[in-house]
């Protein structure tokens, strides 16, 4: 995309995210040659009746920005946003992400569920889609069940893969014919053709064209699995983004207008968030595990050795989907994070009431702790889901029949917590935690990082905004990201291994920036917080006891740089996997001890409850 002004001459940037409930505007400006976040404006999204025009919500959010800074952005005739800044009015770049109306809902299909269908799933998720179902020849459902499912789905788009180039054709056509026979209907509108992307065996391009061109908006791209060992998701991902703009967005109310307001392609919100996570990985040259914990969904992102994977758990969230977290995790797993006695029935009904009134916030400390308990479980389940997608592939040809044609040897996930250098979190609950250590602790308990891990967090929700901005002005995006968005919480040091309460786990020597040295002995079941301010670093020498691994093997010494932050350095000797006593009273006592040791909540209130 060509920018109207040169980057040097730019002064103002506006980015919005049109969320399912709220439209969030973020305004950035150049101060002394440096791009910074200035102000935020928010307004209800107006995609639904009676408004049915997203630009109204965008206009309201932008108007709030205008009022706060006294700078006019909207054109007086109501035609949109003035671009570029003309010395009085306007901004130099306007870009936006969107997840309004339920986001980009996709169905994916392939021949084998653990191969081409799996690759298609990863590509759809990576492009910011919500995968409603994965259909494959071997997915254990009978044909009529698959057909019924496809007919009931009403997706925004279908991604169809299958076969390596020169490989199976019959089974690709089988699944293709099944999709065609099902006559799937698009979710938005009854009159337009459903977009279908074919990313399978190239030998079938002609047949696929013949089969689908009449009834579907067909796009054919390069094979997602040209050979077994390679996953080529980029062409499919690009096609998804293009079709998202051309078909899905253009049928959502007001988007045709919004598309005219910006020259930067509108991106699905999770895709913007994913770009932000990649920005962290690229800038620090480290492996990153990121998470967006929303009201409806949990998006987990990993960038491991430059490989980016996103998963979306469409029904794990903190408001709309809070009951589904309870359903999937089980109430007992939520209760295990509570340091006080509450009846299961009481917690269940409280969460159900939160689901039906999703905009309420916890007023009591007890309620806050319950929500943090649910958040741990949502994140834990989200990571489990992510691990099932972030797998390494190996295909070995062994026999000729379809059932046995390929033995898909799936290694276990390559997400190893010991290899994660950075964990970054975003989303309402994490960003709005009253004490930053609460969000750090929720992330630690849920993900259980091992070794030495830096912990980051989105300050106010603006990762998607900066993600889409990075596509046109990477330097501005990174500067704002680094200075105003990415809050350094600190570092957690947690060796892998488990033991008995009181047993020595590790000795940690820290050489602070002023040269001062501290030495801490950590015993099993303990946790400690050491202050180290933001943007300061310390050298850590970790000597784990036998049976514990800090990253260099059992009992081996590790030297690493730890970063400071709002929380500082957390020495975590609670075990990996995290130790939680079976006995209820003991568990609560230990939990309370941890909470108090790091001042997680106001101590007086906590003591009253305990």
């Amino acid at each position, binding site marked *: 995309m060509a920018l109207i002004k040169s980057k040097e001459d730019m002064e103002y940037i506006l980015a919005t995210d049109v969320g399912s409930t709220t439209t969030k505007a973020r305004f950035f400006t150049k101060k002394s040659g440096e791009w910074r976040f200035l102000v935020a404006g928010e307004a209800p999204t107006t995609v639904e009746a009676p408004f049915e025009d997203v630009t109204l919500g965008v206009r309201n959010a932008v108007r709030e920005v205008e009022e706060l800074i006294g700078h006019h952005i909207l054109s007086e005739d109501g035609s949109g946003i003035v671009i570029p800044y003309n010395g009085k009015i306007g901004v130099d770049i306007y870009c936006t992400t969107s997840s309004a109306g339920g986001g980009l809902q996709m169905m994916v299909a392939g021949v084998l569920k653990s191969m081409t269908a799996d690759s298609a799933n990863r590509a759809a998720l990576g492009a910011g889609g919500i995968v409603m179902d994965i259909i494959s020849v071997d997915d254990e459902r009978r044909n009529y069940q698959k057909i019924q499912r496809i007919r009931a789905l009403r997706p925004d788009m279908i991604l169809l893969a299958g076969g390596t180039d020169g490989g199976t054709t019959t089974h690709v056509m089988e699944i293709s014919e099944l999709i065609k026979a099902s006559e799937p*209907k698009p979710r938005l509108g*009854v009159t337009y053709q459903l977009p279908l992307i074919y990313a399978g065996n190239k030998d079938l391009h002609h047949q696929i064209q013949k089969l689908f061109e009449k009834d579907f908006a067909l796009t054919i791209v390069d094979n997602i699995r040209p050979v077994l060992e390679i996953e080529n998701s980029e062409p499919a991902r690009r096609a998804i983004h293009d079709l998202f703009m051309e078909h899905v967005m253009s049928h959502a109310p007001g988007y045709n207008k919004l598309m005219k307001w910006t020259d930067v392609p509108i991106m699905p919100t999770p895709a913007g968030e994913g770009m932000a996570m990649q920005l962290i990985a690229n800038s620090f040259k480290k492996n990153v595990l990121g998470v967006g914990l929303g009201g409806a969904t949990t998006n987990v992102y990993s960038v491991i050795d430059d490989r980016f994977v996103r998963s979306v758990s469409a029904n794990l969230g903190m408001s*709309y*989907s809070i009951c589904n977290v309870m359903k999937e995790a089980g109430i007992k797993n939520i209760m295990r994070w509570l340091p006080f006695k509450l009846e299961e029935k009481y917690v269940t009904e409280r969460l159900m009431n939160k689901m039906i009134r*999703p905009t309420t916030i916890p*007023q*009591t400390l007890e309620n806050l702790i319950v929500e943090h308990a649910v958040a741990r479980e949502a994140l834990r389940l989200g990571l489990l889901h992510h691990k099932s997608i972030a797998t390494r592939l190996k295909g070995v040809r062994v026999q000729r029949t379809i059932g046995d044609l390929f033995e898909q040897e799936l290694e276990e996930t390559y997400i190893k917590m010991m290899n994660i250098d950075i964990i970054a979190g975003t989303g309402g609950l994490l960003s709005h935690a009253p004490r930053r250590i609460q969000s750090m602790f929720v992330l630690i308990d849920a993900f259980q990082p091992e070794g030495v891990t830096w912990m980051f967090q989105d300050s106010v929700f603006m990762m998607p905004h900066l993600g889409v901005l990075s596509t046109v002005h990477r330097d501005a995006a990174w500067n704002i990201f680094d200075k105003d968005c990415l809050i350094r919480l600190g570092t957690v040091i947690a060796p892998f291994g488990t033991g008995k309460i009181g047993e020595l786990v590790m000795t940690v020597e820290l050489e602070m920036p002023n040269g001062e040295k501290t030495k801490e002995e950590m015993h099993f079941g303990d946790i400690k917080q050491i202050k180290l301010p933001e943007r300061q670093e310390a050298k850590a020498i970790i000597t784990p006891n036998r049976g514990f691994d800090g990253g260099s093997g059992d009992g081996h010494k590790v030297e690493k740089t730890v970063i400071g932050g709002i929380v500082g350095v957390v020495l975590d000797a609670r075990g990996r996997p995290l130790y939680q006593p079976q006995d209820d009273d003991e568990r609560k006592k230990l939990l309370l001890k941890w909470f108090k040791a790091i001042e997680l909540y106001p101590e007086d209130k906590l003591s009253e409850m305990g």
Partner: protein
Amino acid sequence: MKSRNNSKESSNEAFAYTPGLKVKNNMIVVKERKLPIKGDVLVKKGENVSYDTIVAKTQLSGDPYIVSISDILGLEPRETKDFMKKKKGDFVNKDEALAVYSAFFGLMKKSATSPITGTFEEFSDITGQCVVRGEQIPIEIRAYIPGKIIKVIPGEGVEVECNGALLQGIFGLGGETHGKIKISTKKENEVLTPDLITKEDKDCILVGGSYVPLETVKKAIEIGVKGIITGGILSQDLKELMGEEVGVAITGQEEIGITLIITEGFGSMNMSQKAFNLLKHFEGHITSINGATQIRAGVIRPEIIIPHEEPSSEDSKLKELMGGMMIGTSVRIISDPYFGAIGKVSSLPVELEKIETESEVRILGVVLEDGKQVTVPRANVEIIEE
């Protein structure tokens, strides 16, 4: 079919502070009645319709059945087409031969038959399979409320308008139905116990107070009660009723034999006095109800529409809460520690204030009905429209 409340008075409501669920005794209710796919509209603009009038209909293509002909005949897909007995568009009966292969002068004979009665649609010589499509599935859309057709959307559906009362629930189960309103509890804080319903309640919509226990729902289903409107339901009872825990609140398609609407929330919760009184006022009237609920991506709340011809008084004329809340606005608290309490706004500080959780949020002061003064986050109240 799910439908959204589309009342004329709802414009700009998104700009108000958390709008309360509607409890209106007199308004113009407009319902959009649309087909899921294109079809025929059967009524004209200006026509009067009743609850059960079919306003639009269409035919959904039948379910397709895939038959692997080549596999059955033991042939390669390309060879198979020579043995097909049916061509595109042919009608086939169940068990009728679609393809027959014979060899060795008829000594070896195999045939592939149709699993259903339907239309032969397609044979693929790449996969060797064919599609037989079942009979078309008729879809009919009823008016749901009695009234006048005010708009026809060609090929898609209509808008029906009537004068009536409208109440929204917070959560529901089951789809559209209609029946006579019967008040089953004396007060809004009474439990709707099984002994309060009798055989005479068949086809009625029962109104209860604080909650409805599972045994009452079961008895009501047995009797043939069309629907129950109550304040709350216990989580365990709901689980048993649905056969599983609620995950995501998207309901309306349950086939439990009754439509259930709760107005307040989960647990034992007194129905708001205003809602109870309004339903009591219209006891004996026929009401249309729908339990369909969707909390995200296009909120749908359960609805109770009571068509009537009562003239609207000055007091009940529609007032929109455009400016949000003010000192004196009636509100209901919708979260702990004062869940369900009703009061009037006594202060609206501009500055953020620290609450017990240490969060700094916008708050408001509320004087509760018992005179107690409390402070709550603004996000935790809803406006009671008056």
